[in-house]
């Protein structure tokens, strides 16, 4: 195939991107509901929830995008997600008051079948796998 798609949006990477898109949609929807209806209950957790949703959207776009810049953006956003789910996961166990159970990263993403924990790792493996294609000549 000689289509002009991104080096990352190929093969099984397309499934990864689709899962990212679904998670971005889910996180955005939940964050929207939380901020509209109960923001005052837990401003920190819900602000973080909104930030997470935005980062998932950017990560999805970055994985689809072509070239070095999007590759870097993908690394930054996916690293942010992994750090986020680990830090918030630990904090939600240590101090449940700080992060009510309904944020995307609470308890390592338990409310989302741990997809938020697994996805950044798969994303990083995929980025590493496609690196050789990126460092080659630009399209």
């Amino acid at each position, binding site marked *: 195939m000689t289509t002009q798609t991104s080096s990352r949006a190929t093969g099984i990477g*397309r*499934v990864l991107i*689709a899962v990212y898109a*679904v998670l971005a*949609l*889910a996180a955005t929807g*939940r964050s929207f*509901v939380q901020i509209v*209806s109960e923001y005052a209950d837990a401003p920190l957790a819900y602000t973080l929830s909104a930030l997470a949703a935005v980062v998932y959207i950017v990560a999805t776009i970055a994985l689809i995008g072509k070239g070095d810049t999007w590759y870097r953006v993908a690394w930054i956003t996916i690293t942010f997600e992994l750090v986020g789910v680990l830090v918030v996961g630990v904090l939600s166990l240590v101090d449940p008051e700080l992060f009510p159970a309904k944020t995307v990263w609470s308890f390592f993403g338990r409310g989302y*079948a741990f997809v938020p924990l697994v996805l950044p790792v798969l994303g990083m493996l995929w980025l590493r796998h496609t690196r050789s294609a990126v460092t080659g000549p630009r399209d």
Partner: protein
Amino acid sequence: MITWFMWAQFGIAAVAGLLAIVLGLAGKRPNDLTMGLTALVGVLLVVQLVIALLSPAFGNTATGSVLEFYTYLVSALLIPPFAITYGLIDRSRWSTVVLGVACLAVVVMVYRMHQIWFVQVA
């Protein structure tokens, strides 16, 4: 929301999702079966929307947050059209897997909608 309709929708979307993932991994390109089932999942969501809009008029109201319910429903409604469009553009086997992922996402969202409508008393 009507319980039997929700479970029918849940079952069809689950079967459609698992079938598409299995067929995709087996190397099948998006075909009439997988695309048709995804379209059916989308149509059932539209029916669900109509049911949800009419239910309160018959005394069948949500026990949980109506805002949250419709956020799930509208989000779910977006998924099949995107997946089908993608299935038309990308004719690879991974596109069939994407159809499956889309249907399974709808399964989870329909289940959450059911919980919000019937179970939550918050």
